[in-house]
């Protein structure tokens, strides 16, 4: 019989702010998933292509449309940057293909903007806020001050985290809205310092997070006994900060390479192929998502009807070596445990990328927004 043709497009940021956390690493992860899956022996002929969306929604959708219309792509994966992700999700629905997002944070993908063709894999703002907010508040960090990036994403993170903090008996003593791409945080950090809050929540991302952590060290904030909680931080960020500066930082992540043997083996192989870099949770999510997708295609015997493939993905449980057992919910949310980590002191680190200590595990059933609270139209229907 003729093999089922499947074309996978990794659409992400290859040159900008998010290039390090996904970029070529995600492409590698997707290819790795295909070869681990042994696609050929299962009657699938899989090809992986990739493109740079440059963090522009119009570029992203142009590529997506062209991929779907002209190049015969069946699945788009990764796609960090919420704006691009939402746009691609919409195109995917229109063209009835599949979109597995690993890199974007917006929980709208499985909420208001959910789609029968979209699966959200690794994390989302709700999970991040919940993980960090809950675990830290429970561990005694019961007064919070937020440094919030002044735009929709920052506001959402702050709002979600505050709710979690309050729900767990904590208190928010103040916040300050910081303009995007602001290099100097001293002013805001001083305000945070004088608030005497036990935890300073960083509701920002990328360069802003990095600079705020760096300057917090300069002003001796962590030494002074306050804790920093990064709400969206990646292994690559910690790497670029260096342990000396980042030590003591708390963060939530879906995956860390040094947790299981399978993870370590994956990381070792990744590192060998990618010039010594280590994989992030986003890349692991791409691996896991692609694996599950291939299983569904194998079952449906065709990749052409996207909605059918996603329906199949929701039907069979997820299970792979990196993310373990889990499921894809009706709203498209993939469910797995989340973990709270603390960044090690330089003296505790024993090797490259040995950065995190596990502080708490948030079980899968608590890690994500309950199905009925997301306003996803797909859920109401059923």
């Amino acid at each position, binding site marked *: 019989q003729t093999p089922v043709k499947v074309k996978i497009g990794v659409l992400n940021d290859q*040159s900008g702010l998010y*290039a390090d956390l996904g970029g070529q690493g995600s492409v590698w992860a997707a290819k790795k998933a295909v070869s681990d899956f042994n696609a050929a022996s299962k009657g699938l002929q899989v090809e992986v292509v990739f493109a740079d969306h440059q963090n522009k929604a119009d570029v992203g959708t142009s590529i997506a449309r062209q991929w779907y219309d002209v190049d015969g792509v069946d699945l788009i994966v990764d796609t960090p940057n919420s704006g691009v992700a939402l746009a691609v999700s919409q195109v995917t629905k229109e063209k009835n293909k599949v979109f597995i997002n690993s890199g974007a944070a917006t929980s709208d993908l499985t909420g208001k903007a959910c789609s029968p063709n979209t699966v959200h894999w690794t994390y989302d703002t709700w999970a991040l806020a919940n993980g960090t907010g809950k675990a830290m508040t429970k561990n005694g960090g019961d007064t919070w001050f937020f440094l919030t990036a002044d735009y929709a994403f920052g506001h959402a993170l702050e709002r979600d985290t505050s709710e979690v903090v309050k729900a767990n008996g904590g208190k928010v003593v103040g916040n300050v809205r910081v303009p*995007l791409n*602001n290099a*100097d945080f*001293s*002013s805001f950090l*001083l305000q945070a310092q004088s608030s005497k809050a036990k935890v300073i929540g960083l509701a920002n991302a990328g360069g802003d997070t990095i600079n705020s952590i760096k300057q917090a060290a300069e002003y001796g904030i962590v030494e002074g006994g306050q804790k920093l909680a990064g709400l969206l931080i990646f292994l690559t960020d910690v790497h*670029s900060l260096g342990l*000396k500066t980042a030590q003591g930082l708390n963060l939530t992540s879906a995956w860390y390479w040094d947790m299981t043997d399978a993870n370590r083996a994956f990381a070792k192989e990744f590192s060998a192929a990618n010039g010594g870099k280590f994989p992030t949770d986003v890349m692991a999510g791409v691996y896991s998502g692609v694996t599950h997708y291939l299983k569904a295609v194998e079952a449906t015997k065709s990749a052409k009807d996207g909605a059918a493939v996603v329906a199949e993905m929701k039907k069979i449980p997820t299970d792979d070596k990196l993310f373990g057992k889990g499921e894809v919910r009706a709203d498209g949310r993939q469910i797995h445990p989340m973990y709270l980590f603390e960044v090690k002191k330089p003296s505790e680190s024993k090797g490259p990328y040995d950065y995190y200590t596990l502080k708490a595990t948030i079980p899968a059933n608590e890690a994500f927004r309950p199905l009925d609270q997301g306003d996803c139209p797909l859920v109401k229907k059923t």
Partner: protein
Amino acid sequence: MFELIGVAPQALFGQLLLGLINGAFYAMLSLGLAVIFGLLNVINFTHGAQYMMGAFGAWMALNYLGIPFWGALIVSPIVVAIIGMIIERTLLRRLYNLDHLYGLLLTFGLALIIEGLFRRQYGSSGLPYGNPLPGGTNLGFMFLPNYRAFVVVASLVVCLVTWFVIERTKLGSYLRAATERPDLVQAFGIDVPRMITLTYGFGVGLAALAGVLAAPAYQVSPTMGSNLIIVVFAVVVIGGMGSIMGAIVTGFGLGVVEGLTKVFYPEASSTVIFVIMAIVLMVKPTGLFGTAK
């Protein structure tokens, strides 16, 4: 103790001081831009990239050559200045007889190239650079990191020396004259092409120096310059394009204004400089210290 619009006076002092520190970066960057604009009539869009190169220079000096911060403070600006001079010799030079906008466009392109190359090589999330002067002094109203104090002093000295050379020496009058009629100044016996090259190198060196100073305080990242450069342009316009004193005074001044905005109305702190610019240009089109050309 009385409060001032809801902010304790100590906190206010603290913020003023912080503003001054930021202003130090603005001042040095806008000074370099003003020198280059004033003398070459080129809006150096590459300035942000050169600032970034300065910071990366410090990082590379440390990581590849083992040169510490204090050495990098000298080495990095010189290297970046030399690269700048090569750019001037090979590319900018051809544009002097054309409309100034071409200079702006060329340097804009160069900025893209430099930023792109660094992103390719070093990724975009940046690299760490340690603090050479850890610790700080408790001033009572705030904790002043030693390093930040050093930055303010260093940049003040650099700014004032530059101002003196350009406004108060013979060299300065050559430079200013060469802005208008390079051919004629050369016909008086002055080697104008070399002077222009050196001037560009100097302006670029200032940017790189600011970059080295920024490395320990901010992340060394390929995008650090492009985020800052637009604000610095605004500072230069407010000060009066090409005015040396204007660049210095407004640099520090706007740092302070921005700092205060961060206390009273942080949401506006990214736009306050542009608002001021709009107002200044309405009232005094040539900028605070500018003279009509």
